[in-house]
């Protein structure tokens, strides 16, 4: 592989920004945000530069590496701190730095009133750096560093307004659930090292051939656990909704466009493992399918605009995971959906932020309505994103999502049919809840309070939205035109031959559009024709109630993990004091007690002392008597 000396700048620039801002403290309040934005942008340009270099090389020479230093070396466990940029990572690099930079720009304005804006930018830069490390690391352990790094950044940003206890709790929840996923990644690395003796991507790829399927399945499952944690997939999905506590640009960048897609990256990156471990791969698909439905269902009931979008994100990532689980044919489509999703979901989040910005940070859609007039640009960009997510041609989602649905149908047998139906149904539900969001927010009558003075956001905010909207419109076409992305990525994935086509692309598109139309129609009927209550009605069906409660995910966690955990903790704390320490104290007390009891021998009477001596003598004589028997 070609070695490079410039890869490190991708990471170093934002990392430096973060360090400077944090260390300089309040002194950098005035210019910190600008520096951070500039560094993020420059990282983007480095990425573009790398892309241009890569484009100039032949397919097989495109991946490049840079070894920074020997990181850990103990026995055969040798990990270099080295970076690798290949066709897959460059996509992520550009997405991260590109969208990241836009969000930096957006935040300059969005966070302008926050006294801690500098800190916010420091965290954003930290996130960019960590995320870049995640996608650039050349081994699972390097990836792990970035993996936890983005977790940290996510934690810091979710809890950016941690003076609100609920937000602080949300950030903690995110971190802990991510850690559970991280544990999976740890296991995967350990198994890899134990079985293959290496944890670098290239090393593992080479070793796959002579590694047992059991081990590979183990690694695959553990990677999946990691992916579910980071990408908010079932069953570790619960943190994402709460993560909306963070400032909206964070939701856009981290919890929509980039970090949550790390799971998809991980699975795609580990394609060689999943390809060799069908069981794991199947489970990936199942998880993806469950989550896409799960998220979609939650999305239908949420009144909080950000939570609705978050549920949507969960669902969309479900698509990606599903796609990635479909094997070589699916990887590229998963990545494509990831990229297009990055655009339109980020755009919509920024739109939501813009709405909140104009509505005194109100997030309840039932308190919105008729905002189209007041926020035309926001409406327009949001609307474009909406069309993209629905998969309306020719918007971006159409290309990427349909590909996944199609691949699902074509994955063969009953599995194909089930998956195809699920994805189709998901598309319909997506259409329903997104339409609901549109209607509740932008159309109908205004339901906001008197204090609200909705207004359009300043240009610094709508410019990024606009750029992202353009992306949501065009990216699908650009990436799929001539199978651009598929071909770009194909050297990374091994093809095992084509499945027979169950349904032709046209049929799939037709079905999908039909589902979307149904979804939209139902939403129209339900929300546009009827008056929307500004307070959520309580006399709703049990399904709605459950959906509102995120399908009882928190209750489940509460009942199955937290309460027993807390009970166990309480019991152990008591046990430690009463039993373990009690045993120690008991030993002391026994000693003390026997000491006091033995004191009784010392009666103070000479005669009893003499009796003691006499008894001693009797005992000795008795012993002699026995011995000489």
């Amino acid at each position, binding site marked *: 592989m070609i070695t490079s000396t410039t890869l490190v700048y991708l990471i170093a620039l934002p990392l430096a920004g973060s360090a400077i801002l944090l260390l300089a403290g309040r002194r950098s309040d005035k210019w910190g945000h600008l520096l951070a934005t500039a560094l993020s942008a420059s990282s983007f340009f480095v990425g573009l530069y790398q892309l241009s270099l890569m484009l100039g090389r032949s397919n097989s020479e495109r991946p490049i590496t840079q070894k920074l230093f020997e990181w850990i070396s103990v026995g055969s466990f040798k990990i270099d701190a080295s970076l690798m940029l290949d066709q897959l990572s460059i996509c992520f690099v550009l997405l991260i730095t590109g969208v990241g930079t836009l969000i930096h720009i957006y935040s300059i304005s969005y966070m302008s009133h926050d006294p801690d804006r500098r800190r916010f930018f420091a965290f954003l830069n930290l996130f960019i750096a960590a995320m870049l490390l995640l996608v650039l690391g050349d081994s699972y352990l390097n990836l792990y560093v970035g993996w936890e790094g983005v977790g940290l950044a996510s934690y810091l940003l979710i809890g950016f307004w941690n003076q609100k206890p609920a937000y602080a709790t949300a950030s903690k929840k995110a971190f802990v659930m991510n850690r559970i996923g991280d544990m999976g990644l740890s296991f995967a690395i350990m198994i890899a090292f134990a079985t293959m003796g290496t944890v670098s991507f290239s090393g593992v790829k080479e070793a796959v051939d002579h590694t047992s399927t059991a081990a590979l399945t183990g690694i695959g499952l553990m990677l999946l656990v990691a992916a579910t944690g980071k990408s908010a997939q079932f069953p570790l999905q619960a943190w994402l909704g709460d993560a909306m506590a963070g400032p909206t640009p964070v939701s856009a960048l981290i919890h929509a466009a980039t970090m949550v897609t790390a799971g998809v990256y991980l699975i795609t990156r580990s394609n060689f493992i999943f390809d060799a471990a069908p069981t794991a791969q199947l489970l990936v698909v199942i998880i993806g399918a469950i989550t896409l439905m799960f998220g979609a269902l939650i999305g239908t009931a949420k009144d909080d605009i950000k939570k609705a979008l978050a549920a949507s994100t969960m669902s969309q990532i479900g698509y990606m995971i599903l796609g990635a689980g479909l094997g070589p044919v699916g990887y590229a489509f998963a990545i494509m959906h990831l990229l297009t999703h990055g655009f339109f979901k980020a755009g919509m989040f920024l739109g939501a932020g813009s709405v909140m910005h104009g509505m005194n940070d109100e997030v309840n859609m039932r308190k919105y309505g008729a905002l189209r007039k007041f926020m035309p640009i926001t409406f327009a960009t949001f609307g474009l994103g909406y069309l993209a997510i629905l998969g309306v041609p020719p918007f971006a989602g159409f290309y990427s999502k349909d590909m996944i649905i199609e691949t699902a149908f074509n994955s063969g047998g009953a599995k194909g049919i089930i998956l195809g139906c699920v994805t189709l149904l998901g598309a319909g539900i997506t259409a329903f809840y997104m339409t609901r969001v549109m209607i509740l927010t932008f159309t109908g009558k205004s339901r906001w309070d008197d204090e609200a003075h909705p207004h359009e956001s300043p240009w610094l905010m709508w410019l990024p939205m606009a750029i992202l909207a353009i992306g949501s419109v065009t990216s699908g076409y650009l990436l799929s035109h001539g199978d651009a992305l598929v071909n770009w990525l194909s050297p990374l994935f091994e093809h095992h031959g084509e499945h027979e086509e169950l349904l032709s692309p046209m049929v799939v598109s037709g079905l999908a559009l039909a589902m979307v139309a149904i979804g939209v129609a139902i939403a129209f009927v339900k929300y546009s024709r009827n008056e929307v209550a500004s307070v959520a009605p309580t006399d709703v069906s049990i399904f709605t109630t459950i959906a509102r409660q995120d399908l009882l995910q928190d209750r489940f966690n509460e009942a199955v993990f937290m309460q027993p955990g807390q009970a166990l903790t309480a019991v152990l704390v008591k046990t430690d004091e009463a039993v373990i320490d009690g045993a120690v104290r008991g030993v002391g007390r026994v*000693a003390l007690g026997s000491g006091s009891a033995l004191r009784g021998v010392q009666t*103070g009477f000479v005669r009893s002392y003499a009796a003691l001596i006499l008894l001693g003598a009797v005992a000795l004589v008795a012993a002699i008597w026995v011995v000489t028997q």
Partner: protein
Amino acid sequence: MTFNAPVLNYTLLSPILILLGGALLGVLVEAFVSKAMRAVTQLSLTVGTLVLSLAQVWRIHNEQSMSAAMGSVIIDGPGVLLQASILIISIISVFLIADTDHFTALAAALPGSEEERHSLESGNQVTEVYPLTLFAISGMMLFPIASDLITLFVALEMLSLPLYLMAGLSRRRRLASQEAALKYFLLGAFSSAFFLFGMAYLYGYSASVTYAGIRESIVGGSGNDVLLLIGMAFLTIGLLFKVGAVPFHAWSPDVYQGAPTPITGFMAAATKVAAFGAMLRIYYTVFANAQWSWSPLLSLIAIVTMLFGSLVAISQRDVKRMLAYSSIAHAGFLLAGVIALNKAGLEASIFYLFAYGVATVGAFAVVTLVRDSSGEVTDLNRWKGLGKRSPWVAISFAGFLLAFAGIPLTSGFIGKFSIFSAAYESGAKGLVIAGVLSSAIAAFFYIRVIVLMFFTDPSQDGTSVQLPSILTRATLIISMAVTVVLGVYPAPLLNLISHFSTFIR
């Protein structure tokens, strides 16, 4: 019948003879020196005698003789070492005895009587304690080098009688002091009756009263062992009584508490050296070949003694009683050295005896300093905050306690280590385990005292620390220095001991 004129080697006997001479001079001083001059004369006479005796011990330290006194004594390395230890401990004890405040002004006066008050006011002193001490020391010096049963018995009485008397001479709490004397005397006499009875059986068994004769009978005797065993058992009772081993220990807490503190310190330290010295010689030379018979029982006694002393000490509230129980526990440790029955055990025991003895005198020296208007304060609760009141005294007491506990860098640790390793070497693993266990228990109460002194606030109850007199200070400094030096660099002493510690027989 022809009479063989006795031949005594006066040079070898001179350490004891000097002491006896000094004691007799002391008696004369009582008779002829004016009251005012008596105390100082007696003190200088006593110290001079002791130093002279020590010098004499040094002069003969390379000598070995079985016939120094017609076979009644053996002069050999261990004997000389033990004698030197006794003398050194005695010297620093005498420094404590020199403090007039510990002894009654007139032993014959009734407690609380007019006569007592008069004597106190007139500054009367029982200066007889000096010759009595010297007599006791001569007994102690003779005890470990005796080589026949008669001399052993006489030495035993010689060291005991003065101690019985002196235990009753306390200035304060005289009733308790007299009670201590009575108890010590009655039980001491009781145990020496056993001792004597045992002697009778040994004599009957071996037809000899000398160590050598008894050993020969054990090695090659005809007849069964019944008489030997009874004799050994009863002789051991007498010895175990003196060292304070369970169940023959009961006198020691009461006597330690009741006796004047300097005497307690002297008795606790020097008697132990003498008694263990004798015991070592008897068991290492005379009974060595009957090890099978006494080793298990003595081990049992040692284990019970260690554990009993340590356990009971935990719940003591009086510092002197606590030290008494601690000394019982230490008797158990020392018995391990006897049981070891190897050269290492002998060396270890001698080292331990010296180190422990010096530290004990030091600890009791501290006890003499803590007082209120009515004399010494031995209630531990009133030792609270001593570290605040007078840090140096408290630190040195803590040092002695740490030595008793066997914390490294104190002499106690080296002693404990060497004695346990000797016991282990002889296969007495149970002893080592019991020793370790009781050390852990013992640590608890030593530390409790340290906590009291350093970590609790002093209560305002008139307890104060007397400014030590020069002599008491000397005792403290010497014993502290010995304790620390032997903990940090014991090599010279250990070498010395190892060079000398072979019993001749």
